[in-house]
């Protein structure tokens, strides 16, 4: 399968009180065509920053310090902001977490759906409207022609998220980044939106980077999973391996923390401690203060990533030792 996105040793820093702090500490992963890669981790681990780095939408006090991002064969980190703006939407689209606030409240749905088509694809407004109606049908919006005339406040959250998906899809990007697109929706709507994304993936020919902290969602939608911890990739592998046989103690901890209502006496086993602050420097593995298996080596040296089964990579000294 063709690689659509190749991120290598990505380091993104934030300037806080006149000092640069790395928020991403050298992250690498790939996404292939027609593949959904889920990125999971606690809040603050750098999931959204990864997405914004790829999109070049980082806040003003942040920038990509080193590493490379290759999208569709094109190196992005060396391009100007203007050149990257031209690629946004057309090459990479993004679906946001909050459908309630991601649409301009004072413009009609029709305007917002056709806007990008008019300036990216140079369509006249009539053709753009027809295309918009087609895409609204594709995402399962009833009475699409009527919807075009409405304003966001007249629509429910689930409907708005469908419209956001239609908006992003209509520009036919090679990569779609979905930043927790179902977090703000209630469970039934969440289910529908996931089913929609799964169905669309097949005929879209795009790669999806799906950011979430909900492991239930991961099981449902992912082909592969990337687990981030405090700006580092700790584990990466096919979804069956990550959910079924996680190797990194952090991934194991995450899975233990998923509530299971079927079990008679289930107790959520939270991972002790909290995510280190970005300004905090930790010697060795960044997870070792919270890790039940931490050894002296973990306290001293940053673990190297090993691929112990093809496609399943882990950055943990203990896994490396046991594999030897």
């Amino acid at each position, binding site marked *: 399968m063709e690689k659509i996105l190749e991120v290598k040793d990505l380091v993104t820093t934030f300037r806080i009180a006149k000092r640069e702090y790395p928020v991403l500490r050298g992250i690498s992963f790939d996404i292939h065509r027609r593949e959904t890669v889920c990125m999971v981790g606690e809040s603050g681990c750098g999931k959204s920053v990864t997405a914004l780095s790829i*999109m070049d939408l980082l806040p003003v006090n942040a920038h990509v310090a080193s590493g490379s991002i290759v999208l569709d064969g094109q190196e992005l980190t060396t391009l100007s902001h203007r050149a990257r*703006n*031209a690629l*946004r939407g057309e090459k990479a689209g993004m679906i946001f977490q909050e459908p309630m*606030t991601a649409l301009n409240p004072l*413009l009609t749905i029709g305007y917002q759906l056709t*806007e990008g088509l008019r300036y990216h694809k140079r369509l006249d407004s009539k053709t753009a409207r027809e295309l918009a109606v087609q895409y609204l049908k594709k995402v399962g919006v009833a009475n699409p022609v009527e919807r075009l005339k409405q*304003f966001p406040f007249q629509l429910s959250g689930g409907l708005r998220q469908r419209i956001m998906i239609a908006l992003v899809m209509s520009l036919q990007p090679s990569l779609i980044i979905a930043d927790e697109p179902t977090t703000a929706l209630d469970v039934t709507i969440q289910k529908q939106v996931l089913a929609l994304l799964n169905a669309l993936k097949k005929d879209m020919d795009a790669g999806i980077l799906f950011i979430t902290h909900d492991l239930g969602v991961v099981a449902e939608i992912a082909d592969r999973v990337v687990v981030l911890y405090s700006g580092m990739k700790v584990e990466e592998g096919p979804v069956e391996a990550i959910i079924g046989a996680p190797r990194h103690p952090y991934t194991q901890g995450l899975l233990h923390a998923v509530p299971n209502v079927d079990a008679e006496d289930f107790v959520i086993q939270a991972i002790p401690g909290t995510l280190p602050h970005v300004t905090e420097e930790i010697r060795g593995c960044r997870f070792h203060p919270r890790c039940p298996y931490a050894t002296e080596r973990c306290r001293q040296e940053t673990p190297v990533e090993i691929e112990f089964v093809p496609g399943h990579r882990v950055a943990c000294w203990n896994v490396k030792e046991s594999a030897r």
Partner: protein
Amino acid sequence: MSTHRQALLVSAFAKLFKNKLATACAVFLVLEIILLALGPLIAPFSPDETNVAIKFSPGIWAKFSRDASYAAKYVPGHIFGTDHLGRDVFSRLVIGGRVSLMVGFVSTALGLVVGTFLGLLAGYYKRLDNPIMRLMDILFTFPGILLAMLIVALLGVSTFNAMLAISIWSIPNFARMVRGRALQIKEEDYILAVRATGAKDGRILFIHILKNCLPLIIVIATMRMATSIISISTLSYLGMGVPPPAPEWGSMIAQAKEYMWKMPSLIFIPGIAVMLTVISFNILGDKLRDILDPSLKD
């Protein structure tokens, strides 16, 4: 225009017209604008036509006076009486009001366009923020009418210069408010979402951000109309606005002040006209603010 857009407008107007005072002001202003627009057709006399024989004739109220000799002074046709040159006050009021309202409207529009443009740029581009806003601060340091007088003194007395002076004075008001709103809106999720679709800055600024500043701009413009009208009258009163003999409410008051005791109606009539117009615009602006932009409430 779609039906939904109409529904939005209708609901805004419905809210406005629920308030009796605001309705009264709106109705008054609409009637006034129609009256002034039709001014030359309605005015029974030429505003500059002098007739010393009937100078200082009282208005229609004299007919209701018990004093027969006073009532006899009323000249039929001159319902608001005549001034010191025998000119018809009603005609001057109707023709003069056109100037006041026109100057108010044009200078507000000019200030709106330039001020909004500068405010949007300052709010959106961080590097333009300081240069533009410090320039606005310089304009703000002059007390309003003094700034207008300074500009007129530099450029010379004419209606156009007075208009220009008032618009320059309006610019920082618009710029400062719009900048504040633009700063706030550019952080909204939907602006990020639009950027994520690859929209260019111009489109983000002049469609997405401007559209969300419009309620604010409408409110400031209504309030500025009041200020502009009172400013042109003030300038004319001081002899720095509309040059005589052209009628204008402020210059009518200025000419009448010598005969203040002899015939106070000459001052009261244009004075009340200015007052009602300005109060109406202010009340309307106030109510519009409550409906369109409650966050602006002090």
